């Protein structure tokens, strides 16, 4: 909790210089994937490789959530047989992966982005449309 406290402090103390929105990549259909193209606004703040690695890991996690495979079919069929009432008591596979993604983003923010004055917002808070990267002004971090 101490880490999130420092992030929130930073948000309150530092002024937001800009926000960059990483859009969705639809080349493979409607699966949730984000563009790995490095935005020009972040050039001065973070390493291109680092950023692309983050987005790629996110994309892999979302692919895992939406994977059509044995376990998801089993979950689907079981749900159908119980007239979908198991969704009331069971957490779906997707929700489990979303929790993993939330943890991953938190981790990335703490280790990599916060020290550089950046903040990643979990895409689920933006309707899985964009990855919002908030760029804070440099002066408050004494860089």
């Amino acid at each position: 909790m101490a880490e999130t406290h420092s992030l929130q402090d930073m948000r309150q103390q530092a002024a937001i210089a800009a926000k960059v929105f990483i859009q969705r990549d639809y080349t493979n259909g409607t699966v949730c994937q984000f563009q790995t193209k490095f935005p020009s606004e972040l050039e001065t703040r973070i390493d291109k490789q680092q950023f692309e690695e983050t987005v790629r890991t996110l994309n892999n996690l979302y692919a895992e959530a939406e994977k059509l495979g044995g376990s998801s079919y089993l979950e689907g069929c079981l749900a159908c047989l119980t007239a979908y009432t198991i969704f009331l008591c069971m957490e779906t596979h997707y929700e489990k992966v979303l929790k993993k993604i939330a943890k991953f983003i938190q981790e990335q923010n703490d280790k990599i982005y916060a020290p550089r004055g950046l903040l990643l917002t979990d895409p689920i808070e933006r309707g899985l449309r964009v990855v919002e990267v908030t760029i804070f002004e440099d002066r408050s971090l004494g860089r």
Partner: protein
Amino acid sequence: MNNCEYQQIDPQALSTPTPTPTLPPRPAVEEERTRRKWEVFPGKNRFYCDGRFIVAQQSGVLPLTLGLILVTTVLFFVFDCPFLVKHLTVFIPAIGGVLFVFVVTSLLQTSFTDPGILPRATPDEAAYIEKQIDDSGSSTYRPPPRTKEVMINQQVVKLKYCFTCKMFRPPRTSHCSLCDNCVERFDHHCPWVGNCVGKRNYRFFYSFIVSLSFLTAFIFGCVATHLALRAQGGRGLIFALQESPASAVELVICFFSVWSILGLSGFHTYLVASNLTTNEDIKGSWSGKSGAEDPGNPYSYNNIITNCCSVLCGPMPPSLIDRRGFVPVEESLQTVSTEMELPMLAAKKEINVVGGPMPSQLPPLLCLAGSLPSTCNPPQPD
């Protein structure tokens, strides 16, 4: 009825986005209870049980649908089953019961589940997209409908810009004018069910119409058998109908519904097998037009079983609107000050405001973070 806790702010003072107009009420806001996101939801939906259930603004003919199903099934159990159990088998009410449970559960889930509503773009996001569009084109006047082309599985697909939600719609997403929301994998707005049918509740809808067609056909068959058995021994159909008038009612209801429901089930089975939506099928998005080579559906897996499995048994996507989450206090203040500018710039009646009996846009926006009726949102005046 609307007791606004914010002062009425002069619209002219809003041209500069300074936070000073909101500073005086700030202490009042912290004492107010935190609001859940469903209470400030911009679409035309109604919420029950503190945001747990979501329905369209007009329930359509959902009560009629439920009523017809209940009445027919109850009549069946009361008037036909005793006779059939005595003369045939006890499995008849058992099968009827199971089918009835399936029908009602899937109907309620279709009606009360979020169909895959996309939350509207935040002001920052909308501004970023606007900037990107203006960078590529002229910004002296509002250009014609904005589209963006993307390549999906080696096929060009046009994404349209939604002026209400202020974003480029993802593929297969459509804006429902009745609910005033963009819905992912939009199939259609079903008045019988009182909700849109989209990505998240399509499987419930499909299971509803399939189980309903089984139920209707089953009841029709059983009632026909019942009347045939009663009419045996030369007594005639009229005599049978006089003995069991309820069966006549059931027969009529089932006869008229079974064709349409069976037809609908067949149609949706075809859609599921080819991974299409009703919207795409009606518009002919992927059928070969103007003699050009058939582009084909880029979302199809070209395998009927895979298509069926992905649509019906795929992973259940989460609800993106987070109805029961709490509205962050600082963000609600920020959005109040920034949203006030948007109606003046856009000058369009798009921003649908929750609650507020006044048709003008600004005063209800000021009251947005104030108190709103806590019960279901009243129907919009227009």
